[in-house]
């Protein structure tokens, strides 16, 4: 039987961790773009688009991410496309991230006091100008800490894509375990790699929150 050293295990896990990082970045950036579009539909749109974004958010926050992955994986297949795991994983994670980000950002925009809208309107600004010069700069400082904090959820969310067969850190953990029969060591190392990815994000979210201390600025 082949003997595996810790370094053999760690090297293979780190190689797979690249895909966790790539998928996290794609989901976060894609989710950010879709989330921004949804935000404008939600706050600037008519009654129909507001209702749509509300149900969109309710669906993605009220169902398990795993189910969303399954639905994307098997649902896209219904259109006769041969769906690779990375495509289903990417689409589901982008839509899921968008739902959470748009909800965070909506809260941030709504935290800007009503008088700011009225003040800028009284200066003769249009909707786009109000957003660009008055509301968004203030909303942004509120939004940054929870947005960074949510990126941790995205990294952890990518672990579920292993279940539909995308080979990233968690899947590599299972594969390496099956080869080495050392689940304790392997899953311990997998957890530590996730921790190394997520902890700096959590910490910077906390630090940003303290630095910007936005919760009590408007009062």
């Amino acid at each position, binding site marked *: 039987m082949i003997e595996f050293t810790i370094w053999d295990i760690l090297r293979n896990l780190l190689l797979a961790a690249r895909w966790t990082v790539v998928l996290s970045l794609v989901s976060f950036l894609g989710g950010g773009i879709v989330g921004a579009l949804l935000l404008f539909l939600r706050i600037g749109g008519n009654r129909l688009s507001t209702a749509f974004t509300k149900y969109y958010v309710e669906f993605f926050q009220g*169902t398990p991410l795993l*189910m969303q992955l399954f639905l994307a994986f098997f649902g896209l297949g*219904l259109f*006769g496309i041969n769906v690779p795991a990375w495509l289903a994983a990417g689409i589901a994670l982008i839509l899921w991230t968008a739902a959470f980000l748009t909800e965070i950002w909506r809260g941030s925009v709504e935290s800007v006091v009503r008088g700011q809208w009225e003040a800028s309107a009284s200066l003769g600004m249009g909707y786009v100008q109000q957003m660009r010069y008055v509301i968004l700069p203030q909303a942004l400082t509120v939004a940054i800490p929870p947005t960074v904090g949510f990126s*941790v959820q995205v990294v952890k969310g990518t672990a*579920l894509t292993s*279940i539909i067969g995308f080979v990233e850190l968690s899947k590599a953990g299972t594969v390496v375990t099956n080869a080495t029969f050392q689940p304790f060591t392997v*899953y311990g190392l997998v*957890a530590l790699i996730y*921790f190394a990815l997520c902890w700096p994000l959590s910490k910077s979210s906390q630090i940003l929150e303290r630095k910007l201390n936005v919760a009590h600025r408007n009062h």
Partner: protein
Amino acid sequence: MTYAFSFSWLAEYYPVLLKGILITIELIVVGGLFGVALGTACAWARALGPAWLKPLVSAYVELIRNTPFLIQLFFIFFGLPSLGVRLTELEAANLAMVVNLGAYSCEIVRAGLQATPRGQFEAGASLAMSPIQTFRYIVLVPAFQRIWPALSSQVVIVMLGSAVVSQIAAEDLTFAANFIQSRSFRAFEAYFVTTAIYLALAILLRQVLAGIGAMIFPRRPAR
């Protein structure tokens, strides 16, 4: 798209779904109760406990909050047996949920405790109550009242996260969906129905928790 949807499998397989729903409910009831209890104990340890305990609790909380639930589950189910701890699928799933919710609710309860005015502790001490009595009778209830909404949404998040326990063959709702799709080959429909059930469960759980909150905290929060 030339795919004909069919839900006729429901007639044959609905008992499987029902059993899955019951297990998911069992998981969230046990996980919710013990998880919040563990979280409260950890929050107490962090705020008022002995000095040697604080870094241990912090390490536990940070470690759980920054790793995926799936890996925690795999570690407990596949990793712990090499230490001699052998658990059944359901025990491992329950333990993982308790450990996971414990860490998150620790942070939430801690936020509630931090918002408690210092004078409350002093008032308790001046009534000759021990620190534990003060904590139990004076500090905890208003703190819980304050954090109840945040705690409720965390419990819902953990319930949705429990879908993952099907991966260690704990027979929850997702396990039922996997079973049905492998028998009936109606993958999309099986997951569609299951997703709808999860959505209903999430809405129901939110209502139940709001009801419990209204029952145990009848007054407006003290400010």
